């Protein structure tokens, strides 16, 4: 299920305007292209009006695997997903369709993705949007 089709996140003078076409979105790209910066600003929006269902995990998160397995009807953001996700987590992501996922990841092996799941971040002036890789 796509819980959030669009997200707008203000990050200083920049604005992230993100459109989600799939339940699983994978943000690829080299270090320094704004992924962790986006994660940081999503952390500030978490729990606020209109963003109640956002949950964020990164390498500092405690009990990540157990907490992930308990998620239902959430928009789940996972930074450093390459090192965070094991096979059980990937199975959960693939088959628990009530959740939406935004993964910052380079390797998407064994994840159910559609061609337009793979995106990078592209800046145009002060607006940053997703750009499909394929």
């Amino acid at each position, binding site marked *: 299920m796509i819980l959030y089709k669009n997200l707008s996140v203000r990050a200083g003078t920049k604005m992230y305007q993100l459109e989600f076409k*799939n*339940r*699983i979105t994978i943000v690829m790209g080299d270090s320094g292209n704004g992924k962790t910066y986006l994660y940081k600003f999503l952390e500030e929006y978490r729990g606020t009006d209109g963003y109640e269902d956002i949950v964020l995990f990164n390498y500092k998160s405690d009990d990540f695997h157990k907490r992930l397995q308990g998620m239902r009807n959430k928009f789940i953001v996972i930074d450093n997903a390459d090192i965070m996700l094991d*096979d059980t987590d990937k*199975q959960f992501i*693939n*088959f628990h*369709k009530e959740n939406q996922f935004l993964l910052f990841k*380079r*390797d*998407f*092996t*064994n*994840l*159910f*993705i*559609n*061609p337009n*799941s*793979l995106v990078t971040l592209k800046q145009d002036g002060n607006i940053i949007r997703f750009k499909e890789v*394929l």
Partner: protein
Amino acid sequence: MYYIWTEDRNEGLHFWNLLKDFLACDDLIVESKESNQGILFALSTLKPKKEDVYYIAFDRALDNIDIFNKYIKVKALCDKFENVHLLNIQCFEMLLLKFTKLIQWTGCNRENLIITRAEILKHTKGNFLQIDDVENSVALAYFQRLKYPTSERIIKSLTREILSNDEWTLGYKNTETNKKELGKCWYFSCCVMDEKRYSRRKCCFDKNKKGYDKMKELFLDINMPEMIPEVWKNHS
């Protein structure tokens, strides 16, 4: 000259060679590059003649980072030349899976496979499975049976199971070439089985169906004329 380059060594290669035989095309060369890396290497050193046409059958598994990265490079190399065409297919098994008469011809009667196939075809755009859009519980249960379900593994596994009737199977061992091929039911005139097995057959055919007619129906149904238009136009 026309060239079909495939990464397949066994049934996939046999499939493209059957196409060549069907077209009776002496100026079509089917070559296995042995692997997706082999295709990438061959393309990187290719200097195609103007009069030649190349068709590249590269398996595209979007849920595998290694293949995805190679696909990006293969596409870039193909885009350099007007006469080098990357075939718009996920894998050759997908072509068989999409064949509209697959269930009828093979006589597959396993409900879960029939439903899973229907769901996969419902969620295929172009020739690519949009796997995350599949919600049917029977199909999802099938996916979960696989240890590492990816779209490519699902398609290949499902196709093999559906074809495991009579002599439709993939992986039929040719004792002369020692290679695995498509089962004889695909291209031999009926019936290839002895009388005892014939009486227990599951397919829809009697003994009169010609191999050539089966191949023609298959290739037309899976849009082969659109995939390789130059070769098809000149030789069909």
